[in-house]
Structures are given as C-alpha cells and as structure tokens.
C-alpha cells in the first residue's frame, strides 16, 4: 500500500506537469477556482471559446482524448495516465466542461458503433475541440425509466422523396439536455416500433444539431441557471447512414453510453466539506470559533468521514485502474453520497451563519454565497444522471445481487404499457 507512482507513471506525470506549466491559461485560474458546482462559469472570456482553445492546444500537443487510439485523435494512453493527467491539469480541467458529454458518453458510443469512415471524421474533431456533442436521451415521460422514450423515428419509404429516400423523420421531444445550445452533434435515441417490447423498438442515431426542425428551449432552473434544455423535433430528417447499430438495437447501443457514464470516476464529486471546515473556523460564536463547539464538531466529524471515505474510495478506484481493472457499479456510491451531503452541508452552514444564512448576494453573504448556491443546486445532483433511488437500485441489484423489482412493463408491447394517459381513459 503506497501512494507512489510507478517509474512510468512518474515519467508521464513529469511530462504532463511540464507541458501544463508552459501552456495552461493561467490568467483564467482565479475565475476557474471559484467556478461553482455543476457548471463552468467564466466572466472575462467566452466560456465556449476558452474551452475550445484549451482543447485545441492539448490536441495539437498530443494531450487530448488521452485514452483514445491515435487514429481517432487520441493519445493511446492508459487509464491511470488519464487519472494522472487530470490531477496535474487541476483547475484547468474545468475547461473541459463543454466536452465532457462528448468524451465521456457520445465518443465511446461512436467508437463502438459507427463506421470506420465516420469514426475517422467525427472523433478527431471532438478530440480537437472542434465539435461539441450532447446526449438526447431523457424525455418528459421517460426519466428514470429511460427505455420508455416516445420520440418517433419513421423511415421515409417514398423512393421519389425529394429529401432522400431512406432518411429517417424524427418527431418528438427530449429534455434535460445539457449543453444543447452549444452542441454541433447530438446522440439521439428514438422509438422506431411502438408495437414490440419496450426495449426492442428503439433505434439510435447521431444528428446534426443545426438540422431544420430542431428547436432548443432553455430550461430555467430553480437555481436561476439554465444548463438544461428542451429539444423539440419537427419532421427532422436524418440520413440512414447516421444510424448507430441496427434498427431495433437502440437499447444495446444506449447501454454502451450508459456504461461509459457510470465508468467516470465518482471520486471527483465535490461535497462541500473543505469549504464547511473553513467556514467553521471563521464563524465566531460566544465561545470562540464554531469549530470548537461540541455540537459543530460532532456533525463535522460525520461529514468528514463521508468526505474522506469518498476521496479514499476514489484512490481505490485509481489503484484498480492502475492495475488495469475496470471500475464497476460500486462507483454509484459517489453521487449518492455527495448529493445528499451537499444538501445537508448547505443547510448546516446556513444554520451556522444565522440570519445571514438567508443572504444570496455574493457581495454580502458569507463565503460569497457558496452554501446558498449549494442549497439550491444540490437537489438537482440527487436527480440528474440517476436519482438516489435509481442508484440504490443499481447497488442492490448489480453489486449485491438482489432481484429486480416486479415489472409491470415486462412482456407487454410498448404501446400497451400503462401510462398516465391510459390511466385517465
């Protein structure tokens, strides 16, 4: 048990650190330091331009898409080298925000399912920061129950069609699409046959987000940001060549995406604990700093062991990566613990701040309203990318081997599964 790099790892780390020291946009450092939870914020420059510039620089020097094969714009690096890079890149890694969905989910799906020609075209553009991708999965009626999506894709069977026979025509709506407004491409799951079993009637495409008939409406969130969007499709045409996998094989393709989503290491989830510890040394009570109050200490200690538990769990994952093992569903712990913890920490901090805990003005509130933002952001963390309940199901079923719940939608054609609409009839 040790925290030392192997000689190869040390060498990689030294090269990465040196390149970053010479090339990173240090002028953005202070802004990146305080960039809030869940979203890249920059004021002095355009965030997309800054993100693309840094990505291009990394690409040109061979530091982009580290784990991808070289022929697709990557660096052919090992998983542990990716981790080391992230450690060294530090705060500048936040600049990758707009590409995270591309690298983490869409890219791997394209890599697994697209044609060789498509891969050689799309992936290097992504690696170089030229294209931004988004993921068009969730729908208003299909959140935790993702396979319940209803966006329709119908193939244009008219050989004389102006636009092109064999094109697919898309109608429907997606929701919770992060970054849709900045995206060039979208990974889109559709229903091509509602008369067969739920998981069998799905087909996956990739879509030019500038196609006619695509309409994007930002969602104004409860925390007064707008990271998520609704995306509407009205007779949007997609060439059949942009289909990923066979018709009806969409769920299998989606599993590639979702598995890659889960494989991103959970240890990087912020919890707010270091900031809370700071606050407790700053807030004064009648009897000295809050941190010396036994009540505060006891609660802090319970937060502390969860925060360190997450951090050391990430070390365990990194060690497994370094041995060449793949992280599994046990990584679901990260968001499950961190989401609830951020909410608890925010409430605890506001209570410590007393009536000033109400303040949301950055200029007036303690610690620039960090905990107030956390209070209003954390509910989303407990829902997005798998709700607390879905994560507990995953742990119970895939880690502990417990049976799935009884399924009301099993062995039933999709269009006969009970819905809110059918219940009203």
């Amino acid at each position, binding site marked *: 048990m040790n925290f030392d790099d192997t000689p190869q790892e040390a060498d990689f780390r030294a090269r990465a650190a040196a390149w970053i020291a010479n090339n990173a946009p240090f002028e953005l450092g202070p802004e990146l330091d305080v960039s809030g939870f869940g979203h890249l914020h920059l004021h002095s420059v355009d965030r997309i331009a800054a993100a693309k510039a840094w990505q291009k620089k990394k690409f040109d020097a061979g530091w982009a898409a580290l784990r991808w094969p070289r022929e697709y714009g990557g660096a052919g690096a090992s998983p542990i080298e990716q981790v080391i890079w992230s450690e060294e890149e530090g705060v500048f890694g936040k600049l990758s925000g707009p590409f995270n969905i591309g690298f983490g989910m869409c890219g791997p799906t394209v890599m697994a399912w697209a044609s060789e020609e498509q891969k050689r075209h799309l992936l290097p553009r992504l690696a170089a920061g030229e294209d931004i991708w988004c993921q068009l999965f969730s729908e208003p009626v*299909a959140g935790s129950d993702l396979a319940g999506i209803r966006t329709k894709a119908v193939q244009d069977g008219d050989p004389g069609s102006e636009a092109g026979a064999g094109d697919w025509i898309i109608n429907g709506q997606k929701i919770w699409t992060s970054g849709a407004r900045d995206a060039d491409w979208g990974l889109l799951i559709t229903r091509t046959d509602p008369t067969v079993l739920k998981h069998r009637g799905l087909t996956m495409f990739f879509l030019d987000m500038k196609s006619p008939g695509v309409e994007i409406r930002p969602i104004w969130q*409860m925390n007064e940001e707008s990271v998520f969007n609704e995306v509407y499709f009205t007779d949007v045409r997609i060439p059949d060549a942009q289909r990923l996998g066979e018709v009806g094989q969409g769920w299998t393709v989606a599993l590639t995406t979702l598995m890659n989503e889960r494989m991103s290491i959970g240890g990087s989830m912020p919890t707010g604990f270091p900031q809370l510890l700071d606050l407790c040394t700053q807030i004064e009570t*009648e009897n000295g700093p809050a941190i010396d109050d036994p009540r505060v200490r006891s609660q802090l200690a319970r937060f502390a062991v969860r925060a360190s538990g997450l951090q050391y769990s990430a070390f365990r994952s990194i060690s497994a990566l370094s041995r060449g093992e793949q992280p599994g569903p046990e990584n679901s712990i990260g968001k499950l613990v961190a989401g609830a913890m951020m909410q608890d920490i925010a409430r605890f901090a506001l*209570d410590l701040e007393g*009536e000033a805990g109400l*303040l949301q003005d950055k200029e007036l509130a303690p610690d620039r309203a960090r905990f107030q933002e956390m209070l209003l952001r954390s509910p989303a963390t407990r829902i997005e990318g798998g709700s607390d309940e879905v994560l507990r199901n995953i742990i119970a079923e895939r880690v502990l081997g417990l049976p799935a719940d009884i399924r009301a939608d099993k062995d039933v054609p999709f269009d006969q599964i009970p819905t809110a609409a059918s219940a009203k009839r």
Partner: protein
Amino acid sequence: MQFDFSDDQKELRDGVRRLLDQRCPISVVRAVADGEAGHSAELWREIGESGFLAAAVPEQYGGVGAGYLELCLVAQELGRSLAPLPTVSSVYQASEALLIAGSDAQKAAWLPRLASGAAIGTVALAERPGETTPGAIAATVRGGKLSGVKIPVADGIAADLAIVLAKDEAGGQSLFLADLGAAGVTREGVKTIDPTRKHARLSFADTPVEPLGAAGQGWALLDRVRDRAAVLTAFEQIGGAEAALFMARDYALQRFAFGRQIGSFQAIKHMLADMYVALELARSNCYYGAWALSVDSDTLPAAAASARVAATQAYQLCSANTIQVHGGMGFTWEFDCHLHYRRSNYLALALGGASLWESRLIAAIRPRAA
C-alpha cells in the same frame, strides 16, 4: 380534554383557506418572486381588511380580539398558500413586541395600523454572520439617536416601523422603536434565498428612536417575542409542509414509470410516509404550542421551542423530498416545488436557526438540580 381546535376555529380556518385559494393563487406568489416589490400589496390589503391578521390584537387597539388559536390557524393557511406577505416580521414579531413591551401611547400609535395592514413593522436584529448574540450587536443609541447597520431585515424595504436591538447609553442592550420614515434611514434591497419574502439592509445614521420596554431588557423582551413568533411561524411551517407533502403525493399518483404509478414503488411510498410522520409530530407539537400561547402558560418557552424545532425539520424534509419525488421537473423554476424549498429554508432561519432553538428547548425542559 379537547386538544384540538373548536368547530368555530376550524370554520375560520376554512374561510381563510377559501380566501387564499381565490386571492393568493401561485401566480400571486410568483409575481412577487419575479418582481421588485417586497410583498403582494393587494393581498396584504385584502387580508388586512378581513381582520385575520388582527386575530390576537385586543379590540382597543383595532384588533378583533379573537385570540392566538385563531391566529395560529391563519398562519397555517398563509404557510400553505406560500403567501408573499410580511407576516413573520409585522404580525408575529412587531405587533407582539408592541403588545409585550409597548407603552400605551406606542400601542395606540402603531397597533391599529399594524392590525389593519395599513402599516408594516419588522424587527431588526442581525448585523453579521453567525448566531446573533450580545457580542454581535454594534448598533448604538446615543441621545435618542440610533446609528448602525442591520442586515438582513425582513421586509425592510416596505416596513414603516422597525424594532431595533441596540446598545444603549447605560451599556446595556435594549429594544428601540424606529419610525422608518424618519431621518437617517437608508434601505437597500438584498437578495435572499426566498424571493417571495424580501429582505433589506437598513442603515441608521442618527435616526431618532424611542425606547421600547425597559432599558437593558432588550434580550429578555426579544426572547418573549420570539417564543410567540416561533409558535406562529411553526404553523406557517406545517401549513407549507402539508402543501409540499400533498403536492408530492399527487404527483406520485399521476406520474407513471415502468408501466405503473411511481407512488406504487416502496421507495416513494416510504419517503412520503416519513414526510407524513414528520408533519404529524410537528403538528402535534404546534397544537401544544398554540395552547401554551393562548393561555400564556409557563410552559410556553418549551412549547414554542418544540413546535419550532419539529416544524422546521418537517418543512425542510417535506420540501426537499417533494423535489425528489418530482424528479427533474421538481428542479425547474416553472414547477412550484422550489418555492416551498426556499420558503422552508427561509423560515428555518427567520427567528434564529435550528441549533439556537434546540438549545432553547433543552434549557427550558432541563430538570433543576435537586
């Protein structure tokens, strides 16, 4: 034993509820959240005219002299409807401070206007982050003139009257009554976590004030005001908690996933059951607080703290869980979940946070050494 509200009181409650259903739909709440005004002036006027706010004010001061039990039920309905009104500051605190400590002249000058809603009062206490304690008070009165800064002050933009805790010339801390129309008052709106109950920063520069209650008794009086306000606020909290619970319940009945109502999943059912349990425990504590308030019982400090601690916990739980039950939709500005979430966290801090009240509760029930 009749540990419940009377039929007449329940009828009053239903009347308030009908009025608010009609006059305080969520659009009224949202208009305040989205606008500059600190509260809904129209609703305030209407509720004021109805006499509901004056339930506990004696008739000689323009009230209806019904009693605190009635006011508790009014508060519950205001909480349920998320009413964007200066109740905690004006009705539960400023009016009560006047009733407890005001001279006949002060009562006569202000209570009728507060009771009718013609004037708005507030309490100005906090100055800096952390629990507000005597060491945290810098505002000072010298020669009848107040100087200092108070932040955040609930409804500070709209208020006509502030009851201010400040150091007095004798070195003690006392309550003072400040007419906010007087000289030297600067008000500045500040953004808080609940935009439906707006706050301000109030600066005083040699503002003329008059003492409220005995000199040096500021904290003792404030404790008495807060005990009363805690019970009334707790009713707002359980009203809100119940609304949040049933919002979640209704959504769980209506939303389908995996071919079934999500309310048929145990994870959702048990979450809602826990919300209900927290609400009912809080409600029972509130009932006892209402009784103690209504008869001015010796047990009021313990009863108020119990109601406060339980209601704060219940509303925070119910409002957070209602977002969770709603999934992504619960996180949108468009859905109303966050309005309860914000309100619950505002009310949790409004009279001093949970830890303060936990400590007050144990101090009140601590057995005396033999």
